[in-house]
């Protein structure tokens, strides 16, 4: 066995850890040197932005954001969710965050809070403020998946269904929930997940015969091909594709809401661009390794055919 390996072409004997190291360096380089390229135009992100622009807001309306993700997929789902939250906050559309995934709990609390703090800082002195209860509500982690979602859709009194928010405050006392009674008061659902089957549960059960909310979905890169089925069949109105979709959506947000002098440019936009640049460099490295890996397999055969004997 060892002797057979020794006769292999040297490219086939390269320790896999060198490949890991090369990928790590390719990813870390742009992060260390803050090298950022503008994100590529993504049609679905544009569509997502346009759909989010048209969501009906106002008193008695609440957009539901299902954050069915945790630390495992926060790299992609967190910026996606953050962009929608930022967008809704800019547009003064009230929203509630909820999750069927237990590890999402800290993000349900912190993500909207951090975006609000960021906006409050940006718009300091303009009289514009964002605060919990008035602009958003944390409905917390709700176990039960299908049962929970179906119960939520069928409930005739969401105050009785939820009873309290994640902090234990009575739902009736929360300003943005005061006139929200049933699913019919929820014009849209933003569902962000990296879990298998999560978006399907919401698509299947979060609707009624007389009301079907506009579905916006953010998925991890791994499930993009599957998510396109729902977009193509118009079961979802808009899709954010992985971190790339979030980066371009962020750029559209900046163009619409920041560059017009409505506020200072958020520092985080450049972080997303740096991360995307890192990914692009790493993809080049991976393509390079795929090419030389294939070369490593094919070259000894080519040499044998040409009569060059064994390769070493």
């Amino acid at each position, binding site marked *: 066995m060892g002797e057979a390996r020794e006769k292999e072409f040297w490219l086939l004997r390269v320790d896999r*850890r060198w490949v*890991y190291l090369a*990928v*790590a360096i390719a*990813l*870390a380089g742009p*992060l*260390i*040197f*803050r090298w950022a390229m503008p994100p590529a135009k993504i049609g679905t992100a544009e569509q997502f932005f346009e759909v989010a622009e048209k969501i009906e807001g106002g008193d008695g309306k609440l957009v539901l954001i299902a954050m069915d993700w945790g630390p*495992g*997929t*926060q*790299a*992609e789902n967190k910026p996606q969710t953050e962009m929608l939250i930022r967008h809704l906050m800019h547009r003064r559309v009230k929203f509630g965050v909820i999750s069927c995934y*237990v*590890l999402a*709990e800290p993000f349900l609390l912190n993500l909207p809070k951090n975006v609000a703090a960021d906006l409050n800082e940006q718009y300091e002195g303009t009289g514009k403020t964002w605060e919990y209860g008035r602009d958003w509500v944390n409905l*917390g*982690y*709700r*176990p*039960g998946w*299908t049962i929970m979602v*179906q119960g939520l859709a069928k409930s005739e009194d969401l105050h009785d269904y939820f*009873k*309290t928010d*994640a902090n234990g405050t*009575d739902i*009736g*006392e929360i300003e943005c929930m005061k006139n929200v009674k049933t699913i019919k008061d929820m014009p849209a659902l933003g569902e962000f997940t*990296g879990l298998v089957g999560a978006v*399907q*549960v919401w*698509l*299947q*059960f979060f*609707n009624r015969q007389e009301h079907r909310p506009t579905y916006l979905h953010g998925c*991890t*890169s*791994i*499930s*993009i*091909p599957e998510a396109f*089925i729902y977009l*193509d*069949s*118009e*079961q979802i109105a808009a899709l954010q594709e*992985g*971190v*790339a979709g979030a980066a371009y959506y962020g750029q559209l947000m900046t163009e619409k809401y920041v560059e017009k002098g409505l506020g200072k440019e958020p520092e985080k936009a450049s*972080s997303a661009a*740096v*991360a995307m640049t*890192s*990914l692009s460099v*790493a*993809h080049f490295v*991976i393509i390079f390794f795929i090419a030389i890996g294939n070369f490593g397999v094919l070259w000894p055969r080519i040499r044998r055919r040409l009569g060059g004997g064994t390769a070493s």
Partner: protein
Amino acid sequence: MDGWLRAEIIAGGIATIAIYSFLWKENPFYRFFEHLFIGMGVGIGIVVTVRNFMWPKGIKPILCGAGLMEPGPRESYGAAYVLYLIPLMMGFLYYAIYSKRYRWMARIVIGFSLGMGGGLAFKGFFSEYLPQIIKSFKPLVVWQAGGGLDWMESFNNVVLFFTLTCVMSYFFFSFDHELPVIKQASASGRWLMMVSFGAFFGATVMARMALLVERLQFLIEDWAPAALPWLAHSGGGGG
């Protein structure tokens, strides 16, 4: 930086490095943090489920309904809430599976769960797949509003039709695949599926890289300045 926050960041960085140390080789450092993550995940799950669901939606209404506890200022629970004990006790029947003598009791509640799951799956199937089936019936020739042929849309629909029929023919096992038409169609179906798996694999690579970028961003921008302040002061660390 707040002391607790700094400790949190440093611990997070050590945990990240420990998990990635598996890439070098299997080691006790990795194994310890892997078990720690699983244990913490389960622990958080139990605490949050009891706090957010079991207590406010199950135990508290029963206690208030039975008059053993005072409800909150805007809450009201009638005596009927004591009936919640019935589904609660039924749920507990699941644990009878551990007893040889009472195992039959667990079958009752498993039967209920299976029936409920079947019913929900039935509804779920129709609300998820029917729209997809309906949308797969597309015209092969699409005309623009002005009257001209929409070449791109027509081409897309032809590709969809071809792919759909070829892939479906691959999975038809009720007739002979040696028939030339079926053989060619199912072979094309296999190739088209390979293309689709390639797209899936590419997406998988991108997803894994995105997760790694987030961790590297954390290590470079948050962890390094917190754990190695001398490095950040000397201009390294990037953040």
